[in-house]
């Protein structure tokens, strides 16, 4: 569904992405892992057209996304740190995005709004919200328009265990619908039951991109976090 070819991105002297080649197909739930600053967020932002690559192409359903914008209506994006206009209330932010999207109201997915009880907080200004509540708003916005692709950047960071569990359940449901889900996270244990593929990045390069079942077979470990350390050791030697 998304094909990335020879993607390069430089920020000043820092090479954030080096020749990244990836194929992300529908129905997969892919974890994007790697140390801090390895280019995970840059890669996600490039797919969204927020960061513009220096070289390489990104194809969304076979179409180059360069100078395109309509494809973004099929992506639900949850940023690592959601930044919203301070003087708007939660309701205003959600309503504004709904207006801008021209999406039929009766088809929106209000599941997370109810589960997170956002309506009780609807009149709070964004500047008064805690980090966790802001994160909940980001989650609501990402899931509101039934997108085909989810790009979730550290979705559970800052959420309390109950909220994180709700989000995980929601991701599972969407995965069951055959949607493409791309998650970056450091909490590997949380991902165990969720993901079907794993991409490991380091210093802007993709070290490996494998199915989790293959990883488990190759390394003989059951836990994802163990398989990664195992794989890394193997690559070192």
């Amino acid at each position: 569904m998304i094909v990335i070819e020879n993607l390069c991105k430089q920020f000043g002297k820092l090479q954030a992405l080096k020749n990244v080649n990836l194929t992300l197909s529908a129905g997969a739930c892919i974890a994007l892992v790697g140390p801090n600053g390895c280019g995970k967020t840059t890669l996600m932002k490039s797919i969204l057209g927020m960061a513009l690559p220096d070289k390489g192409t990104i194809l969304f359903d076979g179409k180059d996304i360069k100078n395109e914008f309509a494809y973004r209506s099929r992506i639900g994006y949850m940023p690592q740190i959601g930044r919203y206009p301070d003087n708007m209330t939660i309701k205003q932010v959600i309503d504004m995005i709904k207006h801008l999207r021209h999406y039929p109201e009766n088809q929106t997915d209000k599941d997370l709004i109810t589960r997170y009880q956002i309506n009780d907080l609807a009149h709070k200004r964004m500047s008064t919200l805690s980090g966790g509540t802001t994160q909940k708003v980001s989650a609501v916005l990402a899931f509101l328009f039934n997108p085909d692709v989810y790009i979730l950047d550290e979705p559970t960071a800052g959420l309390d265990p109950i909220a994180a569990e709700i989000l995980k359940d929601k991701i599972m449901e969407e995965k069951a619908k055959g949607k493409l889900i791309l998650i970056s996270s450091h909490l590997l244990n949380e991902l165990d039951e969720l993901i079907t593929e794993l991409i490991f990045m380091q210093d802007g390069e993709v070290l490996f991109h494998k199915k989790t079942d293959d990883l488990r077979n190759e390394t003989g470990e059951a836990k994802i976090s163990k398989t990664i350390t195992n794989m890394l050791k193997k690559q070192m030697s």
Partner: protein
Amino acid sequence: MNRITQFVLTDIFRNKIMIAYTALLAVFSWSAFTLENNSQKGLLTLLNIILLTVPLVSVLFSTIYIYNSSEFIELLVSQPIKRGKIWFSIFTGLSISLALAFLLGAGVPLLLYASIGMFGLVAGMGVLVSVAFTAIAFFSAIFTRDKAKGIGISVLLWLYFALLFDGLVLFLLFQFADYPIENAMVFITALSPIDLARILILLQLDISAMMGYTGAIFKQFFGTALGFSISVLLLCLWTAIPFALSLYRFQHKDL
């Protein structure tokens, strides 16, 4: 009108600075006209105040507004909306509100105290100058992420156009006083939107007769329909060029 512009407009109408700006312009204009019984004198007083405050408020308010909307812009960029549309809609919203503030504050007394033709001219110039300095604000805000630096650039640009430019022109005038530079002066005026607006208005007042030989040359150029149209076009270019440059930069920026 598109929804982003609508949103920006409702946001600005609640802004206290905008209300204060409208009130300030109203106080200046009403006092300029009511204290002078000669409407020409009143207009002249008003002109000087307008040509200092309108560019300053337009450029500063817009720059600060752009920086404060960085979250809003980031949110919109991840949505299925063209980048150019986002930038242009915010520009339209800011321009409309600054122009409206000017028309409400200074336009109403102008309409009551000055002739209808004069009202049209001054109101038109005020709107054009507001929009041009909004565009200049977009230009200075796009090049740096640092809010303090961006505001600094805007203030410097305003300082240049409002004060330094006149000083430079005067300096040139003195240095080359022995040469026939009148035609060159007409060209140099085009290099500042404030001076363009000032000369266009001054020439319509009776005092233009006192501006000597250069004044006569100015009148010969700016007084004709062609000269007038060219100057209005130049004022529009002062909007179009800075905005186009900022738009190009915005479309190639990582957010």
